[in-house]
């Protein structure tokens, strides 16, 4: 029935989501998370101290935090920490925006118009198994080393999950609701705007979250591989740390990447919850 098998598209419900809803007091949850994080940091610290690990091999959490704090006001490369984080975010958002702009309408059209589905699917199936980083050399060739090449790599990561989930979501919309809308006099544009898209929203939101997470991960790779033109971005910091044998810088940048990625997902979860108040 469907040409696309949703292997890459996760089901629209995810466990983390449910857990956050079930926990009644956010403060309790925050406390727990904080305690767990502190526990892991303590373990890391204890391991480094007790095993007497060299600073170049694995610095302590304190050294990492210190290095990041210094970077907040002391520039490295193109600027301070903020410059680097902002540069990465801008690339992420431009690549992601392009993926949304192409993936959502295309997924919608594929679900609604069978010939479009037949035409796009073979190409898409090929496309989605190419790892984003494999696009990097080609992206540089096309766009020149710089923001556009990196944004393109992000696009290749974010586009497939957005397209697949939009497609699945629209396709799985209850046909009886479309019938109901039609008997009430709805035409195609109303059905798309008021039935197909709202019905597909849980899937679309999942696609956006997976796409953004994938894009963020691809970005760092893109900055390391395809970022030769620019001297900014979190990937650049990792590279700098490696080249100057500063493990604290490399790890610090990695931790930052993790933190920012988590924050982005939290924001999207909020948006998701807000757009789907009707579900619970």
């Amino acid at each position, binding site marked *: 029935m469907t040409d696309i098998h949703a292997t890459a598209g996760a089901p629209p419900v995810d466990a983390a989501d449910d857990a956050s809803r079930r926990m009644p007091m956010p403060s309790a949850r925050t406390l727990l998370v904080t305690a767990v994080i502190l526990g892991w940091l303590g373990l890391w610290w204890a391991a480094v101290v007790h095993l007497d690990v060299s600073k170049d091999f694995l610095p302590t959490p304190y050294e990492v935090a210190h290095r990041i704090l210094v970077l907040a006001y002391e520039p490295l490369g193109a600027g301070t920490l903020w410059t680097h984080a902002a540069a990465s975010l801008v690339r992420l958002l431009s690549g992601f925006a392009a993926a949304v702009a192409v993936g959502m309408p295309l997924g919608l059209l594929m679900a609604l118009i069978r010939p479009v589905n037949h035409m796009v699917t073979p190409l898409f199936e090929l496309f989605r198994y190419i790892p984003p980083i494999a696009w990097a050399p080609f992206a540089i060739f096309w766009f020149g080393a710089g923001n556009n090449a990196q944004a393109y790599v992000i696009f290749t990561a974010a586009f497939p999950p957005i397209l697949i989930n939009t497609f699945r979501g629209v396709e799985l919309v209850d046909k009886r609701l479309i019938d*109901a809308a039609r008997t009430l006099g709805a035409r195609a544009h109303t059905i798309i705007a008021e039935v197909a898209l709202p019905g597909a929203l849980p899937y679309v939101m999942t696609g956006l979250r997976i796409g953004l997470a994938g894009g963020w991960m691809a970005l760092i790779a893109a900055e390391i591989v395809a970022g030769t033109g620019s001297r900014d971005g979190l990937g650049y910091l990792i590279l700098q740390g490696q080249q100057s044998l500063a493990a604290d810088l490399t790890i610090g940048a990695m931790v930052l990447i993790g933190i920012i990625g988590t924050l982005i997902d939290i924001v999207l979860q909020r948006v998701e919850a807000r757009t789907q108040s009707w579900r619970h």
Partner: protein
Amino acid sequence: MMRAAADCGHAAVDLQPPGDCGARAVAGFRVALGSRSIVMTNDLEYENVVMEFRGRGATVRALDTFNFHVAESEFVVVVGPSGCGKSTLLHMTAGLMHPTAGRVMLGGSIITDPGPDKAIVFQNFSLFPWKSVRSNIDFGLRINGMPPAERNELIDRYIKLIGLDGFENHYPRQLSGGMQQRVAIARSFVMRPRVLLMDEPFAALDAQNRQLMQEELVRIWSAQRPTVMFITHSVEEAVFLADRIVVISRRPGRVKKVLDVTAVAGASHWRMDPFEDVIRRPDFQELRAEIWGLVKSEIQLRS
């Protein structure tokens, strides 16, 4: 439920306030009724209707040479065993499906597309889960271009009518099955359609609400006079509401028998009287028994 029932009881709202009579809810329909005054009849004609569903391998024939005529403003109730093609018949009348053979006509023209002139209350309600009670009822009016002030007044009236005031902003998921069913009914009624198609619309209601909704349906039908095709599994409901009852045979569905209730129900028709009084009448019971016998024989024939 009790609260809703109580509200429903005193919500004897006038459905057709002065000056509102000619103005149909649906803009397109108003045009059709406009100065050119095209004479439109709202009768339904089923002509040798066959409906087959092609599945993997097997083909299911749901309806077989179904012939029937529903007069304009007639109230026809359809009964028959489960799976005999009642819903299929209604969906075809709504324009959602097309017969494999034969024709379904409204006012002399073949039904090609669904539209607000043929409102349907689905067996499974089919409310939009992401729209509130109010927006669900509003949907058809809004997309057909009725001005907001007029819409709001109409919706307020119907929400009171179905006993859901206070629940306007709830989502369908937050309502009981019976409440959802009443929203689905209101969503169709506000459209003031030429044909009102109802697929077991009161099945999810408790006895008390069912009775209240039956009364409201009769009231609305008397005021607007749409042509009604009404499916039910309740033989009592059929006998109480119908002008005529069509008994459909088990699959593939054909007309097994047509019973004229008006001949028995008196000049003013017993549906205008309280249900609990009517069901005690011997002639009512007699007709009920006859229809029950017809349906039962179809069910037993299966196996």
